[in-house]
């Protein structure tokens, strides 16, 4: 619940006197606010591990396909082999990360960015 309370008393509260026109210093004030760093940290904590993971997973697949083709040819059932299953898993992981990110961003990010933008556009910074 704490996430959705306005962050009064932080940098946001002290900068209200600033004119919306002096945007340059306004942006720095926003950047110094607690809400901004929460968004920044949260986004980073999702995006950075996700990118490392997906690139690692993809290149693991590529390197096995290139340097260990024999492993990829091991049969799983009938004529379906490990290579095909591994490839299919790349599709599954791509769909899962995409849907997971959309859901996560909708719930954890969008409410915060909305609030921050409204304040910025209302000249609160």
């Amino acid at each position, binding site marked *: 619940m704490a996430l959705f309370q306005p962050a009064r008393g932080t940098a946001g509260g002290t900068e209200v006197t600033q004119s919306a026109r002096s945007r340059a210093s306004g942006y720095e004030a926003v950047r110094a606010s607690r809400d901004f760093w929460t968004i920044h940290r949260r986004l980073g904590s999702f995006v950075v591990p996700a*990118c490392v993971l997906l690139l690692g997973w*993809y290149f693991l697949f590529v390197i096995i396909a290139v340097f260990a*083709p024999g492993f990829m040819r091991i049969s799983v059932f009938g004529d379906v082999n490990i290579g095909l299953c591994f490839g299919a898993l790349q599709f599954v992981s791509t*769909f899962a990360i995409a849907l997971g990110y959309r859901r996560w961003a909708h719930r954890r990010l969008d409410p915060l*960015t909305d609030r921050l933008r409204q304040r910025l556009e209302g000249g609160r910074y």
Partner: protein
Amino acid sequence: MRPLAAAETVGTPALNFVIFAFFVLVTLVIAVSAAGKNKSTTDYYAGGRDFTGWQNGIAIGGDYLSAASFLGIAGIIALSGYDGFLYSIGFLVGWLLVLLLVSEPLRNTGRYTMADVIDLRLRAVPVRAAAAISTLTVSFFYLLAQMAGAGALVSLLLGVSSTAGQDIVLAVVGLLMIFYVMVGGMRGTTWVQIVKASILAAGAAVTTLWVLSKSGFSLSVLLHHAAAASPAGSAVLGPGLEYGVNITSKFDFISLALSLVLGTAGLPHVLMRLYTVPNAREARRSVVWTIWLVGLFYLCTLVLGYGAMWLVGGKQILAAPGGGDSAVPLLAYHLGGTILLGIVAAVAFATILAVVAGLTITASACFAHDVYAGVIRRGDTDPSDEVRVARITAVVIGIVAVVGGIAAKGIDVAFLVSLAFAVAASANLPSILYSLFWPRFTQRGALWSIYGGLISSVGLIVFSPIVSGQATTVGAIGASLITNPHINFAFFPLNNPGLVSIPLAFFLGWLGTVTDPHPADAVRFARMQVRALTGVGAERGGRS
């Protein structure tokens, strides 16, 4: 099996032509009806920013799934099996980087082009010029690929085998696309993409189900028959047939994989589409839709490729005009006769037309907005002037594309597309990521990274076995453009430059920045970061 002489036109050219003409008519009506709404630069470049997430997602898919994907990937699978599947996975996984790193900040900070984002951060005319040059280069290679593909397709499907006849058809393609772009602008082009993506998805799905019905809906049975029909036997079910020939070709594939996965996030015609939605949230939604469309489509190409290997056979595919690119049309002919072939042919033709239109609007927007308004007039233009320049540019690009397409007719489509990806990943991606995420990034870093990536990727291709030094085909690596064995300046062993040029461009971006005597502007980065994360100051769409 229907009797079919090799190297002959399949089906009824007249029927194929009627289906083509119907598609062209429908899309022309769309373009004309969109024209009435095109008043401002935002209308012309960004379709008024009032497309919804799913509409734009389908349209991005339409822009991305080029003839190289539809015909090329299925063709590679039909001829060498699993290695074609490797290609398609790279094309798909790259979309996650667009989703996670680029789509939302780009929509929040840019207006019309990729250079807008870098310019917001660095505010320097030379950087905008550099970004424009690399955008135009990538668009040009991609455009050449589409036009080269169109030539092969036309000779197969319309029965136009004379050189002059093919050139005339290419000129007609160029004229149509100039019309879409000039009249319809981004709004018209987007609707053309949506129509095209829908019929492409439907066509692929129907043909896939048809193939599966032949194998009793068992993938294992399909693979079994495909392997039995191939001279390589069960080797087609695993990797290595194309890229496993020797150690050079293995590293070549890794280099290709790097370009494919990093290139998507630097493709200007994909990035420009992100501006057609009202806000960053819709941009995110559209990329998720694109991932679904592209992913399901590539799963279909797997079935289509192995299906063609089984039902048509590699020998007949290789003998047909266009080689691997003819696998899907031949498969359609085998399954559903002239009607299905006509539909698949129309889908493929629509694909080329729509992708060419998408590339043309990107390149014309880049020239008018970045080069003309940004660099030549230093921002001192009015919107109607800019749109006028964009329209004229569209005509020039159309002519260049037709001439280039006629010249590039023999060149492999998949190769030209992978080249565009390599240049996009080397020249565009590093400076986009640095601009968005690195506080210290400076003008010198951007210039070194963009020009370094551009020159190294194009230069390494010139000095690769693609251009000279290889008289005959070895595995995946076809003969060079210069087949004379006495002319050999191929000192770079790989066909794909990405393994060297992408890390080099990132390194140059860093090196240029740390040696720049002018430090980065902290206020400007603060503004960029706040705008990228919150969307404040971003241009809104029509509805919000």
